[in-house]
């Protein structure tokens, strides 16, 4: 009787520990994954579902990761695969997300002059609009390269595309951005 109670306590402790570990992972990665998913799907509900599903797979599969980078790459890959499952359906492709066209106000930079803050906000808005207008495959690569700062090799491994394909998609994405952005930027 005492043994049974003891094992139950152990199980609940173990579960609590597991939940706590998962919550830590969620806190660390969820925003990044949600951004990637939203960038792909442009839909809050679907993006949230994909992120939740990614963490569900994370718990179920109990994959052992050698490094935190490996773990991050695995989570991005599962998220992108989840996105593909959603947008592959013709139903999704014909469902336009209704956007009110309003961007968040933005945090601004404390101490900046009013004029600079307005200009920066305008520039940020323009960049985000340009990126969101890119075709999905270019948007994905641009975000992983410039925001997640992944190398072409890493992007290639995550997206399961050849490095040459990733390079050409990156180049085409940059060309489109150059065309759509008023301001000139340095792309590397």
């Amino acid at each position, binding site marked *: 009787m005492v043994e049974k109670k003891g094992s139950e306590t152990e199980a609940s402790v173990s579960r609590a520990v597991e*939940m*706590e570990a*998962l*919550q830590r992972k*969620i806190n660390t990665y*969820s*925003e990044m994954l*949600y*951004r990637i998913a*939203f*960038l792909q799907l*442009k839909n*809050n509900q679907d*993006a*949230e*579902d994909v*992120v*939740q*599903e990614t*963490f*569900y797979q994370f*718990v179920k599969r109990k994959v052992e990761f050698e490094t935190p980078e490996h773990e991050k790459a695995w989570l991005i890959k599962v998220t992108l695969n989840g996105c593909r*499952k*959603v947008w592959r*359906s*013709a*139903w*999704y492709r014909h469902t336009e*997300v209704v*956007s*009110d*066209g*309003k*961007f*968040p106000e*933005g*945090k*601004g930079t404390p101490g900046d002059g009013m004029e600079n803050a307005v200009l*920066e*906000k305008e*520039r*940020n*808005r323009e*960049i*985000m*609009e340009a*990126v*969101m207008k890119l075709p999905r495959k270019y948007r994905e690569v*641009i975000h992983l390269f*410039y*925001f997640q*700062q992944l190398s072409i090799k890493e992007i290639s491994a995550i997206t399961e595309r050849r490095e040459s394909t990733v390079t050409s998609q990156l180049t085409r994405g*940059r060309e489109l*951005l150059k065309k759509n952005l008023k*301001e*000139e*930027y*340095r*792309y*590397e």
Partner: protein
Amino acid sequence: MNDFKDCYQTAVNDMGMPGMKELHIDASSCMDEGRHNRWVIRQMRRTVTTAFSAACLVFLCGFGTVKAAEYIGNVIKVNEWGFESADAATMARNKADNTGLSIISEEVELAVDADAESEISGEGEVAAAGLQKSVGGEEGTEADSPLEGDAKYGGEAALPEAHTLNDEVEDGGVSQKKEAEEEMEGMQVSNYSSLVEFEENEDIIFPQPLISVGAESVSFTVCGGWAMARYDTGGKVVWVERTDYAGTSGHASSKVFPGGVCNERQYTTKQGYTYTLVDSVKEEGEQLQIHGAVTVGSYEAYIDFMGYTEEEAVQVIESINLSEYEQ
């Protein structure tokens, strides 16, 4: 020049994605089996919807193809006076608006030379001649038949031009008639007095019945896409005619027999082609006349028998290889 990487990172951190809401997920919701199952079911439902939509699309495309084929195909119907034929679309439209044909029909005398007239007419009581515009007849022609003036052919454009044409005919009937006459006169009519002569001079598809070999007299008349053959054997006569509507945008015509027709029936040949057969309404003592019509591909073929019994007529019909029209 600003660095895109820095600017993009600033933009994402500062503004977030346009339309993106804040995310609030916790470990328990991620591990919830019910949520996972709902997600899987939702994905399956979308897949099924997609598959169903695709299936519908395939079905509709297939149906459309069939309807398109029907549109191109000819339809022959029997009315109390004879045969009525048209492409499916025109037939449907004419059914809805019966006045169409009568408005545009007009008499146009055929420029058949005297020889041809005498060759064709003979003792022809059967209304089996008359020329029809091979191009599908943009305006109707009611031909004064070289036989007895019994055959009437009305042609009508099947496409929207028909309306314009109707208006033109109504507004300026005289000039339209004149134009039609000129056009018909411009068409070359060729006559041949034997099968050999016909085959030497014409390169058209015109499957012949077996009687074309043993007949006492054989004659052919060809005008554009229309051709007719007459076979005389022992006082009995068979007329076979065919019109090719390939390359036309639509047509409508009719073949009228004096006294009208009755006893409509179908006969399917061993090759699988179905003739619509009718009998001419005749007074007592007059020879039986059987008329048949069939449509194969872009062709319409008619056959008229005078003095033939039903069995003999069927034998002649069976001897015509209609599959040649499909080659």
